[in-house]
């Protein structure tokens, strides 16, 4: 078993959820998202982010608009759609279940129920 693979697998599973959370807080453009995630301790490469964002947009979870920028060409600012919001909520549910389960399973014996 390749540990990196598993680690990557774990990260990959949660990636979408994280991104959607960030965007849910307010519209953001990709650089920003990368920055935020880095700040939160979750490293993500732009090369990973862009395709993900595009896929979400194609699945109508996200929408974007062009914003003129002073220092160059316009940028895409992403925001959640209705569908994306619903999606997010479902994911949130799942995450809550998961984290509860994992926490329970990994807790020292005496705290287990």
């Amino acid at each position, binding site marked *: 078993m390749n540990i990196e693979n598993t680690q990557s697998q774990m990260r990959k599973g949660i990636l979408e959820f994280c991104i959607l959370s960030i965007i849910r807080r307010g519209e953001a453009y990709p650089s920003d998202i990368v920055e935020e995630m880095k700040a939160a301790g979750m490293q993500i*490469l732009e090369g990973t982010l862009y395709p993900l964002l595009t896929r979400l947009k194609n699945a109508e979870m996200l929408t974007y608009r062009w914003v003129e920028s002073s220092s160059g060409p316009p940028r895409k600012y992403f925001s959640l759609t209705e569908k994306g919001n619903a999606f997010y909520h479902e994911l949130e549910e799942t995450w809550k279940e998961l984290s509860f389960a994992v926490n329970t399973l990994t807790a020292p014996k005496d705290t287990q129920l």
Partner: protein
Amino acid sequence: MKKIININLSGRVIPIEDAAYESLQRYIESLRRYFAAEEGRDEIINDIESRIAELMHDKVKKGAAAVTEADMESIINTMGRLEDFEEVDGDSGTASAAGASAGTTDSAFTRVTGVKPRGRLYRDTNDKILGGVCSGIAHYFGIDPAIVRIILAILVFGAGTGIFLYLLLWVFVPKRPLEPTISKRFFRNPEDRIIGGVCGGLAAYFNKDAWTFRLIFLAPVLLNILLEVLSAIFNGFGHHFFPGFVFGSFTGTFFIGYVVLWIILPEARSNFEKMEMRGENVDVHKIRENVKSEIESLKGHTQQFANEVKDQARAFGRSASEFAGTRGRTFASEVGATSRTVVHRTGSVIGTIVKAFVIFVVGSIAFAFFAVVIALMFTGVGDIANNFFLENGLQKFLGWAGLLLFFGVPFMALVTWLTRRIMKVRSQSHYLGWIFGSLWVIGILCVGLFAGSMFKSFRFSRQAESNVVPAAALNHLNVTVSEPEIRYSGYYSFINMDGDNGGWDVNEDSMFLSNVHLVINKSNDDQYHVKMTRGASGMDARRAEQRAGAIQYPVFLQDSTLNLGSGFAISRNDKFRNQEVYVEIQVPVGKSIRFDQSINERLHPVRFNSRYNNRRRYDRDFDDFNWENEVALNEHIQAGVRYVMDASGDLVDPVGPRYNTSDTTAIDGQGRYEYRRGTSDSLQRSIDEKERQLERERRDLEELRNREQEKRDQDERERNRRPEPEARQTYAPMPNATESLII
């Protein structure tokens, strides 16, 4: 010193070092390949490029002159190298249960068992010409798909088994976008192409010169031609050095092989593919193989994450029906899609082949014509044409210009096009086409005008008549030709001396013809008359007359021998304008005429009509000249026989049998020479003779009666006018008039 170029990336203009630019290109290219199967690939790439442009702009803003290679490195690191893109192990076995994720369809087997082993046989959707079967197989074995395709082609051509096998695999083998497993592949090289770039691609692969391969493909054709030429030189035409089919079949095979390769091998369009073609090592490429399959899983996960619990339970139950449904549907849709591309591609291949063939045919024709023109200009034929046919400057100009332009221009145009194609020179101007086209149209015009002018030159025909008066009354006439026969002197080398060259000659100044016709008619009195009529054509009446008069044909009467010349000369000033000579000999009834054998030998009436048409109506545009019959001496009159002219205008051989078979209808026998149909016998002749007699006598009788009637009327009137004796006088001349009517 470093080379710096400016690039425009997502709307920003950025100065960048050449080396850094290359790194950037490679990176972007690798991204393209990476996301090749993604739905929003272009969008993703655009976003990434935009981001890179931002980062580059930042670096330059800080004061650097241009983006350096080091800068590029760090930017790429920021964006992420492909190998760092999130890796997922495809072995973990999470199957895509929904089965509708973009671009991936897993087989039922995988869905059921949840196992997706690596190295499984798939159809490669990334690299497919029809259904991706061959590239899937190639991926499985780790070889170049082109090789598999070649094998398939051989199977297909060889036994047809390939087709069935292929279809089977197409239906049953699942498809995935697969990564290329080899780093050096056969491509077609668009930068080094003459027709399809097949040889160029092979050359790039083997690192040799493209012309080596072209020669290989052309070898059978060239050898064939070479051997044919050799055999023609040594053995004369008609022998073959080697049986043609040996090399002929090789030619065909090589040709088909080329076409097959053309269809099979993809064109190396992107830089990346070009690098692959040459086998340059690209690391991203190998890495991608690991990464790419993970993207599938990511996609699968996206859906599956939401539905997994629900669907897993149902998966097994659905798998059987889904297999049928999806498989069939995907096959049908794929066939539709690929058939369009296949048709398009084979269409373009076929189109090019057809074009090449048409051009070859047309080129051969044009070349043949041009060869004709050259031949005309440089052998003697042109001289003859100039001297004897083309009258004035205008005709000469029109004729030659028309010929040259009409035949030469297509030839030049084709040569130019071929040269361009081979040398791969782009057309510099579009005017060339117009120039050629208009020259050709001018050529057509010239040819048309020339034809018109030639017709006009022959429009008028005039004759000049002259009489040869016999010195004394003769009883018999001998017709002979004492001059030697006109024969070709061999002035022009291209005219074959071996054939029958009697009766005409041509050299630089004059043309000699023996186009002389003899006409025998009955004389109206008891003298022989010889009338010579010379005819010629011309642009107007005057010229025609002049030409006719210029014909010199000797006719001498010595005692009782009529000596005809063996021919007449046409000078180059007069030109050939249908010059003819008719000699009419009028023989009094009861007198005889004899034709010498020399006439047969030396006079050759040139016939332009069909051989068996003995009669020619000669009545174009002239006044009252009407030859209806001719004596064709060699067919109807025998030499050496002493013929007697009889009352009906026929020549009769009193001694031998009457002249025999001739093939035309009879005309009334009033001094004209007759031809009769079929075999005649004397009985038939005498019957006809008697009939004519009868007719004549009947007519005479009629006339007599009329005269009688008139006479009676006169007497009647005389009696009535008795009181006027003067009137009677006026009627006196009548009886004389009556007498003279009696023949």
